[in-house]
């Protein structure tokens, strides 16, 4: 056995308990791409009753980054004197005319970093180059971005700026619940996001929409415990916030991280790829940090009109259909030549299905769907 969070016996017991607890079918959405990845990688959806349907949420931050922002990043990378620093999985996400990999191949300057603080170090080391950090991610990565810009200001760095694409999870859940086609009975909230933000934002959602929300981790045992906590509530008609991931999540969140976010960012409406504009779902730099906003610093062109796509990524991101139901899944759309963003990142629902599912299932599901 690898560790207690991957204990095959405990996994079997939990799956059996979920089965015994259920008197009817339920639809539960796991919010985070990391959870989707683990569910498919470990085949967890095959262990649970067929009547418990898992819906893959929009929780892959690189996947939901709007095409316009990717185009801007590509444009910046190809601007003389500018270097774009980005998380690695962002490089393969297609914009309207190529991704950051192709921008680099055309001579653009793109560097993979693992933290915005690494990008800050690049800025210190290359004072004659404008360093733009492509700030992508949920509330999980926002504190480090906030720290980088706070430090840049304290150090008087004039060659560091951010292209901000940070998004917030709770408004996206609210938008999903508001949609007329919403059929989600409960949520597994993203454990890492909750470890930063705490649980306070979720109670109003539970109350208003009468859905249970369980902050859940990423191992097989975590995920099954989260599902059980959700099913337990659904079966008795409760709708509360439960913390399965207590080893990492305090209900009040990480106070110093929250304070950093508050100092540097303000909430604004944000467009999500595949979902459209969602009210209050984005983080933007506050006015006092405007000089560090790449969109202010550089004269960026008007976004190109977007081409029509045959891909169903919007429906996948809304949880309406499984990736395998899309007519292009595994055919025109594969990880090496993705049509939609969820096929790009390993965290994307489509990529997770492509990597870990039987090749034969592609055809069968596509026909069924």
């Amino acid at each position, binding site marked *: 056995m690898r560790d207690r969070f991957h204990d095959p016996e405990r996994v079997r017991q939990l799956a059996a308990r979920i089965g015994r607890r259920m008197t009817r079918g339920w639809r539960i959405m796991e919010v985070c791409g*990391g959870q989707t990845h683990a569910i498919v990688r470990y*085949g967890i959806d095959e262990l649970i009753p067929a009547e418990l349907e898992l819906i893959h949420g929009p929780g892959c931050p690189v996947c939901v980054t709007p095409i316009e922002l990717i185009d801007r990043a590509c444009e910046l990378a190809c601007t003389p004197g500018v270097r774009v620093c980005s998380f690695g999985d962002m490089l393969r996400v297609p914009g309207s005319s190529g991704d950051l990999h192709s921008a680099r191949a055309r001579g653009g300057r793109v560097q993979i970093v*693992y933290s915005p603080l690494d990008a800050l170090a690049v800025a210190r080391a290359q004072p004659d180059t404008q360093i733009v950090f492509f700030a992508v991610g949920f509330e999980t990565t926002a504190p480090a971005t906030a720290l980088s810009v706070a430090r840049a200001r304290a150090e008087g760095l004039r060659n560091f700026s951010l292209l901000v694409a940070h998004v917030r999870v709770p408004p996206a859940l609210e938008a999903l619940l508001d949609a007329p086609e919403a059929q989600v009975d409960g949520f597994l909230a993203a454990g890492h996001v909750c470890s930063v933000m705490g649980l306070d934002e979720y109670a109003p959602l539970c109350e208003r929409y009468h859905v249970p929300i369980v902050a859940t981790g990423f191992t*097989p045992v975590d995920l099954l415990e989260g599902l059980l906590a959700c099913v337990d509530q659904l079966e008795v008609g409760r709708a509360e916030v439960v913390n399965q991931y207590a080893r990492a999540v305090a209900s009040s969140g990480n106070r110093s991280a929250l304070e950093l976010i508050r100092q540097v960012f303000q909430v604004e409406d944000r467009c999500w790829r595949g979902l459209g504009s969602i009210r209050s779902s984005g983080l933007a730099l506050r006015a006092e940090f405007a000089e560090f906003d790449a969109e202010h610093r550089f004269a960026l062109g008007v976004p190109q009109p977007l081409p029509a796509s045959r891909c169903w990524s919007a429906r996948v991101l809304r949880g309406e259909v499984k990736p395998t139901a899309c007519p292009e899944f595994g055919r025109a759309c594969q990880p090496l030549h993705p049509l939609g963003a969820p096929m790009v990142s390993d*965290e994307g629902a489509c990529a997770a299905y492509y990597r870990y599912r039987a090749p034969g299932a592609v055809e069968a599901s596509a026909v069924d769907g």
Partner: protein
Amino acid sequence: MADAGRVAAAVALGECPIPAASDCVQLVHGAGGEASRRLIDSLFARELGDPLLVTDRDAATFEMPSGPGQIALTTDSFVVHPLEFPGGDIGCLAVYGTVNDLAVSGARPLYLSIGFILEEGLSLATLARVVGSVGWAARACGVHVVTGDTKVVERGKGDGVYINTAGVGWLEPGRACGPSQVQPGDVLLVSGDVGRHGLAILALREGLGFETRIESDCGSVVRAVEALWERGIRPRCMRDPTRGGVVTAVVEIARSAGVEIELESLGVPVRADVRAACDVLGLDPLEMACEGRVVLWVAEAHADAALACLRELDPSAARVGRVRARAEGRGRATLRTEIGTTRWLDLPSGIATPRIC
């Protein structure tokens, strides 16, 4: 060194003077004149230290074993960055990569050629270490470096050192092995813990500061493979799991052989620090490159003896899976996960990039 960069920069440089005493590679080192000669004699020949190395003729000649058999020939190029990493450098990697390709084909590696493309400005001390490492690794594998070549490119047009090696080996009758010989019931073994080389390079290149230093596993598999042959154990198929790691090796063999191969996740030896780092980065150790490991398919009857033999050289060698009867359609590979479920394996889709959350 035959043909030591005679053409490269001669035309462009014209009457470029010979550098009196330089501590770095200059274009003139590739021009084929006195500077090239000095570099060959004082650095390459000295550091390689191989009595069969040809430095004054255009081609090396060498003896092949007598008796029935076939010549095996392979080539590989090495562009690793950084040039030096925990556990090795580009020099030994260029030897092990080619030698291991011969060994897993069933051939006994004998001779190597080596070609260097050097970037102007490379420190001669670094070059001496890399070339010394080539010599050391070749001796460790029991192969001779018999011929070589050097070119120099302008600063900014290379990445310090690129190396190409070609290897000649001797394949005795009865030692040929490959996917076509893999049969249902065969057992899958791996000669040591996996994933370290890929992670070591990634950690260094991206400046990831782990608490423990992860060393590359780069090394020769010749001893392990020869030990098996000497004991009369005949591997049906071997593969060195380099790019794409164990997963790629297993998927490719399953497809070539038209069989179903089940990999047992818990059986694959992965060091705790490697697994922890991969967990943090969202990477799969089974997809990370190894540079000193061999994955072998052996008949069930030989499995225990083969494993015992491998463990004498590396206690972490393990039994990691088995071959099942031919599935319908093309061959495929599956993984039995840590929690007892089964999923399909596919070739990794591209460059391993850590996920952000």
